[in-house]
């Protein structure tokens, strides 16, 4: 079959689907966790019960994780309606209302799905879509990731067809001209990397896609692979053709079973259609892609460490040069790029309008994809033009802080990144300005913190992570992070002295200097940035033994406000795991601080109408208990 025939078939199939009523359900990992598969079963049952034949299509994630399970009902002559937080018991209502009848069930709707003039699905009712610019996410949650026709009908593999008629040098020139920088975090110019690999000596070159997304709080690569794997594959084939490779690998972490499954099915379909294999689209160019499963190590995200893991070794980074483009997998020239970098390729090659280069800032072109998590109203995924301010992302896209709490900081780039405080919210997001702020683009994971999150505890959390994930090769990283961690633990426990801050600063600089790879060189970033922007909080822990955010366990105490406690209620007594709460029927409840394990359960169960349990820091501020009061009164009197 020629590509023209493939395309016609795909288009016909897509038009066919559009002409009938159908249901789309988001079933990426996030949708599944929220119960999407139960919703699908409910639809099947309800439709079967009514003997209606309506296709139910599993799609990926549209980026509105807070609204999962997300259902879209598409009717040929009416609006496509997007429904949020659908549970199985709501399904009969939707079937009755909008599939059988004409009631769009607006009380369950999030908005309508419309296709804008660039062909990108948007939900105009949500103001966030005005600020987003979806390039690589444009099909996510809209097309079936396990049906290659959906991708082709929406413009997929057009670029590959075009690229195969270009000279490899022209393709590389096109990547260079676009200004695309690698999306793995460091921002190395992609075109230059491709050129180095093309020029390297070696017969069996290969292309590797880095999908070892290890940052605990970033999940955009997973979403892309689960929602539109063909886009990544198309980028890889073009890369293979440009650098002269015939073999590609997608290295996915084993923690992402659904991504592995969907990539596997995408590859199989590509082979069946002649898009992958010995004769790519009849051009004579041969390219095969395999999946390599990672076994879970944060350091494997580092390019040379990833290659070591693929060779079946411990995933330890090595000294560069030689660069991977000269000597990579099994010694062969290897082109290694991140999932997102490959995803951009089909949009860039042969685009005479230079659409990609026209978006973004002078040195950071195109868009940036971020995952939004933590204490914001609308956690999820977003794609914005480079240069968008953080304030816009926090307030216009993520919906501001949850429960009206005050914004404190955003941690960008996970354990390698740094935290950015309120005062820097107006900086434009791009590779360079984030680095100047002490943070980095890194994975693109954004975690939002509010006034109830402790800066010191957050730094300790990230150090705990990097300490465990350090591969152990460099002493400064292996032992240095451990020492940093122990100083931070002392601070959180109120056992540190002021001079420890100097040590913390110095050691952080030393770990950065004395480590070979990005893991060690960036591990102290969370410490350095929190010290820089929240120095007062460190001092409060040390000098006053006080945790201003009321997080650090050793510096807080739970206390029941006597005037708020409803004497008849015994919720706290019943749940306390250490029997630390005293007070009989009709008496005010009191926490025995000696016995209290500070699990917080009493605070959780105390009915909101009383709200009697509070946290106090420093512990010395705890009001004296009744008995102590009596004895001091006697003594004093």
């Amino acid at each position, binding site marked *: 079959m020629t590509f023209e025939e493939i395309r016609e078939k795909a288009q016909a199939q897509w038009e066919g689907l559009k002409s009938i009523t159908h249901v789309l359900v988001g079933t990426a*990992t*996030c949708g599944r*966790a*929220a119960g999407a598969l139960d919703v699908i079963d409910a639809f099947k049952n309800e439709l079967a019960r009514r003997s209606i034949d309506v296709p139910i299509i599993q799609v990926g994630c549209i980026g509105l*994780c*807070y609204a*999962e399970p997300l259902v879209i009902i598409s009717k040929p002559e009416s609006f496509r309606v997007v429904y949020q937080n659908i549970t199985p018991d709501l399904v009969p209502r939707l079937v009755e209302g909008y599939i059988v009848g004409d009631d769009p069930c607006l009380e369950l709707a999030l908005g309508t799905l419309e296709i804008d003039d660039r062909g990108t699905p948007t939900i105009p009712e949500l103001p966030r879509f005005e600020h987003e610019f979806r390039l690589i996410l444009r099909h996510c949650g809209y097309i079936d990731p396990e049906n290659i026709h959906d991708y082709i009908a929406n413009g997929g593999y057009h670029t590959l067809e075009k690229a195969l008629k270009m000279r490899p040098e022209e393709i590389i020139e096109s990547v260079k001209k676009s200004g695309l920088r690698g999306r793995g975090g460091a921002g190395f110019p992609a075109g230059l990397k491709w050129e180095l690999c093309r020029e390297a000596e070696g017969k069996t070159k290969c292309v590797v896609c880095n999908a070892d997304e*290890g*940052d*605990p*709080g*970033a*999940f955009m690569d*997973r979403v892309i692979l689960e929602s539109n794997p063909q886009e990544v594959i198309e980028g890889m084939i073009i890369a293979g053709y440009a650098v002269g490779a015939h073999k590609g690998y997608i290295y996915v972490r*084993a*923690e*992402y079973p659904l991504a592995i499954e969907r990539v596997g099915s995408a590859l199989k379909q590509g082979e069946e259609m002649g898009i992958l294999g010995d004769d790519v689209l009849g051009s004579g160019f041969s390219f095969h892609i395999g999946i*390599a*499963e*990672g*076994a*879970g*190590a*944060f350091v494997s995200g580092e390019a040379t460490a990833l290659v070591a*893991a*693929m*060779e*079946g*070794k*411990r*995933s330890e980074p090595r000294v560069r040069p030689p660069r991977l483009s000269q000597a990579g997998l*099994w010694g062969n020239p290897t082109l290694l790029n991140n999932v997102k970098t490959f995803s951009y390729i089909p949009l860039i090659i042969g685009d005479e309008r230079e659409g990609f280069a026209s978006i973004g800032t002078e040195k950071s072109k195109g868009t940036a994809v971020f*995952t939004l*998590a*933590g*204490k914001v109203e609308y*956690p*999820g995924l977003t794609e914005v033009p480079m240069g968008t301010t953080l304030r816009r992302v926090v307030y216009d896209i993520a919906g501001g802080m949850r429960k009206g709490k005050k914004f404190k900081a955003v*941690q960008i780039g*996970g354990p390698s990144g740094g935290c950015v405080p309120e005062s820097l919210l107006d900086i434009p997001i791009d590779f360079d300005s984030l680095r100047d702020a002490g943070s980095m683009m890194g994975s693109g*994971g954004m*975690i939002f*913190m509010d006034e109830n*999150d402790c800066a010191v505890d*957050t730094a300790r*959390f*990230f150090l705990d*992570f990097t300490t465990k994930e350090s*591969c152990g090769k460099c002493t400064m990283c292996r032992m240095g992070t451990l020492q940093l961690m122990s100083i931070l633990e002392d601070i959180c426990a109120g056992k540190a002295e002021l001079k420890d801050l100097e040590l913390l600063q110095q050691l952080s600089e030393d770990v950065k200097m004395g480590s070979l790879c990005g893991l060690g060189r960036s591990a102290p970033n969370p410490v350095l940035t929190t010290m820089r922007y929240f120095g007062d909080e460190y001092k409060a822990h040390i000098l006053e033994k006080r945790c201003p955010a009321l997080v650090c366990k050793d510096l807080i105490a739970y206390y029941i406000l006597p005037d708020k406690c409803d004497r008849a209620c015994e919720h706290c007594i019943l*749940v306390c*795991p250490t029997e630390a709460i005293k007070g009989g029927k009709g008496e005010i409840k009191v926490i025995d601080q000696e016995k209290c*394990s500070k*699990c*917080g*359960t009493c605070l*959780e*169960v105390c009915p909101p109408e009383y709200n009697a349990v509070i946290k106090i820091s420093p512990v010395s501020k705890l009001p004296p208990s009744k008995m102590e009061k009596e004895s001091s009164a006697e003594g004093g009197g």
Partner: protein
Amino acid sequence: MKGKGEEFSTEQLSTILEKHRSEKNGLIPVLLEIQEEFGFLPREAMKRVAEFLGMDPIDVWGVATFFNQFRLTPLGKNHVKVCMGTACHLAGGRLVLEALERELSIKVGETSEDGQFSLERVACIGCCMLAPVTVIKDKIYPKMTPFKVEEALIPYRQESTVED
């Protein structure tokens, strides 16, 4: 998951190894598949893998102990995973982990004596909007709190008493 302690079927192991014969440097895929079959990496199986791939056993051990996915001891019948990603940490994941340790009377990384429960911390399972998250067997428990822990464990505890 089959087998207890160091018992495993050598036949099944041979089948797995044969499947990987044609692959180049397939150590990690082989180990992942062995673990999938037996629930952990039995010491004897690792020795066989070393022999099969022409490697020193110490190098297989080195890889098996390097990556987080690999386990050297069997898991409990009900494997409990507590997400300790950043979002879950901020939402109080540590309190949930401590509550589970207290309820199950085991520390993180351990398996209960009766083999019913094992407890593990994992770094982000990618559903941050449901934080803090706990996974028991394959079921995801969203927005966990120390108070909800006891209730979540009830069905698994009942199941084990019924069997006994």
